[in-house]
């Protein structure tokens, strides 16, 4: 069935090795700084360590992100190249280290050692600041997500904002300034065209993107990312992807509530059922709208017009080399990761298990396994593993990297839009569609008991 089963096996092996490595390192840093060190200090110094502990705990998430982003980007570049190679009948990088594991590390070293060139006639200050301004929002924009994707772990409580998604979107809108800056400061006509294209594109596609997320927030009744995640707990029928709580009644009925649960949720009878169906369809459309808008927002094929290698010779970053280019590259992949995380949190239930608990707990062995992990020495005494966060994180990893792979598959399939077609598609198709979905949701949610 699979003629390239060997390659698939190698890529899976590589993925598992990298993911295990990344998350072990990041979690050991968090645990060491935020849990182990304060525990040690308290046992040695008593109350005197309180201030130090507070500072350590506050610094932990930031340090975790700064450790996570470069190694994660390295992994994502590698998996993108290997997965693309799999889908395009090539081999991909497989020479540096076992399975090509160290390819991106070698690339990173090469980029960092390269000469940093500022072209003649370029605006040197702007030229230097553009990559920084491009990279910074993707770091601090990711911060509120951290609480949501770790199932509100105590270490990351501090990051949760009541207006979480609003902050994330605001941060996500910033990089376009950097792209225009880079295009302008490079003193290159191709770069300038690329920068201007990116401005036009980002402004147009921001609207359907935000409208689709507003639809979700409307269903949830909150902007708080942690609350949105918590509402979706309890199986795939509770996810925002499937109606944002419109199917919760069905879920309750299946869980044992019977007809009574149905009657409670769908209190208007047939009208409620129709509205629940409408909500499911609307939210699925919203999900695709978000994915499309996000693809355009982070300049990936088929919306990679600002880069457009075959037209603009990679557009705004044509004149960049060395470290500055590396930062652009890093930010691009971080953006892809952030966008996938937002999708996971807003639509796919964050760390929620798609199998509902009433099925899962009836499978022999699973409750015992959870209990064994909960009672183990690592968990109860050392707090290395927190059972709630542990399984949630596994699901988040699966969902987020699934979306990343999906983006790679899209990249491996589609050609690029033309700029006028891109604009027409955005303004004439996506924006009206997202408004229609929004209006349907506004009315339909009145007839069903949903999350909000």
């Amino acid at each position, binding site marked *: 069935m699979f003629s390239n089963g060997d390659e698939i096996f190698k890529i899976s092996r590589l993925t598992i090795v990298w993911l295990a490595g990344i998350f072990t390192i990041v979690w050991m840093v968090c645990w060491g700084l935020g849990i182990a060190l304060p525990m040690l200090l308290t046992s040695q110094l008593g109350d005197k360590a309180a201030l130090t502990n507070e500072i350590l705990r506050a610094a932990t998430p930031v340090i975790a992100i700064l450790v996570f982003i470069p190694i994660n980007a390295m992994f994502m570049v590698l998996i993108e190249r290997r997965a693309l190679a799999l889908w395009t*009948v090539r081999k991909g990088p497989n020479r540096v280290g076992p399975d090509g594991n160290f390819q991106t590390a070698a690339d990173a070293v090469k980029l960092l050692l390269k000469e940093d060139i500022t072209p003649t006639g370029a605006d040197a200050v702007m030229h230097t600041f553009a990559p920084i301004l491009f990279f910074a929002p993707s770091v601090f924009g990711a911060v509120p997500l951290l609480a949501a994707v770790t199932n509100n772990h105590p270490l990351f409580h501090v990051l949760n904002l009541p207006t979480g998604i609003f902050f994330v979107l605001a941060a996500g809108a910033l990089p376009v300034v950097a792209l225009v800056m880079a295009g302008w400061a490079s003193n290159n006509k191709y770069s300038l065209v690329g920068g201007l294209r990116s401005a036009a594109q980002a402004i147009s596609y921001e609207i359907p993107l935000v409208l689709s997320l507003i639809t979700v927030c409307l269903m949830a009744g909150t902007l708080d990312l942690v609350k949105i995640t918590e509402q979706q707990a309890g199986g795939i029928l509770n996810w925002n992807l499937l109606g944002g709580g419109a199917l919760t009644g069905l879920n309750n009925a299946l869980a044992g509530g019977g007809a009574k649960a149905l009657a409670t949720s769908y209190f208007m009878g047939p009208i409620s059922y129709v509205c629940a169906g409408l909500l499911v369809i609307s939210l699925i459309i919203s999900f695709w709208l978000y994915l499309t808008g996000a693809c355009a927002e982070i300049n990936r*094929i088929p919306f990679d017009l600002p880069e457009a290698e*075959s*037209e603009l010779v990679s557009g705004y970053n044509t004149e960049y080399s060395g470290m500055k280019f590396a930062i652009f590259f890093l930010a691009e992949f971080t953006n892809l990761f952030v966008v996938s995380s937002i999708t996971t949190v807003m639509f796919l239930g964050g760390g929620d298990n798609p199998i509902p608990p009433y099925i899962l707990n009836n499978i022999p062995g699973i409750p015992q396994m959870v209990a064994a992990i909960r009672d183990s020495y690592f968990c109860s005494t050392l707090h290395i593993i927190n059972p709630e966060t542990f399984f949630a994180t596994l699901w988040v990893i699966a969902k987020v990297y699934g979306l990343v792979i999906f983006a790679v598959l899209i*990249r*491996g*399939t589609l050609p*690029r*839009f*033309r700029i006028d077609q891109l604009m027409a598609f955005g303004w004439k198709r996506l924006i009206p569609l997202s408004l229609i979905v929004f209006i349907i949701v506004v009315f339909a949610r009145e007839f069903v008991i949903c999350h909000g």
Partner: protein
Amino acid sequence: MATEIQEIDLKTDEMIINMGPQHPATHGVLRLLLTLDGETVKHTEPVLGHLHRGQEWQGQNRTWFQYQALIDRVDYLSGMFTSWAMARACEEIDGTVVPPRAEYLRVMVSEMNRITSHLLWLGTYLIDLGAMFGFPFYPFREREKLFDLFEEIAGQRMMFNYIRIGGVVRDPKPEWLDKLKRFLDEFPDRIDEYETIVTQNPIFLKRTKDVGILTQAVAKDYGVTGPCIRSSGIPLDLRRTKPYSVYPELKFDVITFDKEGDTWDRYMARILEMRQSIEIIRQCIDKLPSGDIMGKKQMAGMRIKAGEGFSAVESPRGILGCYVISGGGEKALRFRWRNPSFCNLAILPELLKGCPLSDIMAIFGSIDVILPDVDR
């Protein structure tokens, strides 16, 4: 002093962009001087000659035998056709009779070469349209298989030097024919595979439909040949209109469309031509006579009788003509090539007028220009 109200006009300038000679989408070293208004092309000026190697001059300064090996490089993607054009011109002067087996082998390898050339075009065209990493490598998979066959029969994968003056240089073994048959059996499925990804892809249709329409008048004026003119509705195919070699004995369709062709039609014409080539090769295998394969002794001091001759073949890009004057010696007095890429490239400024920047690649790619063929 009375104050005057100054009217300020918002002035916009045209931008001159220098596309190439080093640019990922110009397929080598073409330089296009583009005058842009925003992203709309106002004027295009192709600047040629970056790859000029003096191929005609080299032909006059090398013996016939030496130049045979060099001639594959004129159009490196369809070496069989350049060899064939030269061989036919020389045979016309010399009066050499080519054995029928050699003629059939020539048709076979040429049609195989047409397939490899179209496959490479297909992959690179998708790259031009922005499918940078996905589809383009699928055609290369089949191209490699054909190259393996070429390697077996000619000893070379791209610069074949297989068709010589007087015949062909090696006789294929029966196993080679079996391999070729096996390839031909699986290849139509592969073309279907490309078509499932590309032909009805909505983005591909948006990028290619009604883009770069080549009217029949323009095509005739500029001397466009090959799939470009056939997709515009003019059934100009030398294999049918002025048949040479054994083409009169073979059944195949000349691919034309009823309307004036856009870039999608040029894509479709090439896809369909590949299917026709399969049929031609199949017929050749069935009809392949036994016998000699070389009608002239190949040696370093080979001579061609005095005289002049012209021959044209239908290459993947159009009509490839070769004009030779021989003084009866070891070297030619004059070589002159009529290269399809050069003539097809001439329509580029005409087609690019008023189109957006992104369409330059869609249109330029669809003409299928090989730069060594343009500059010689």
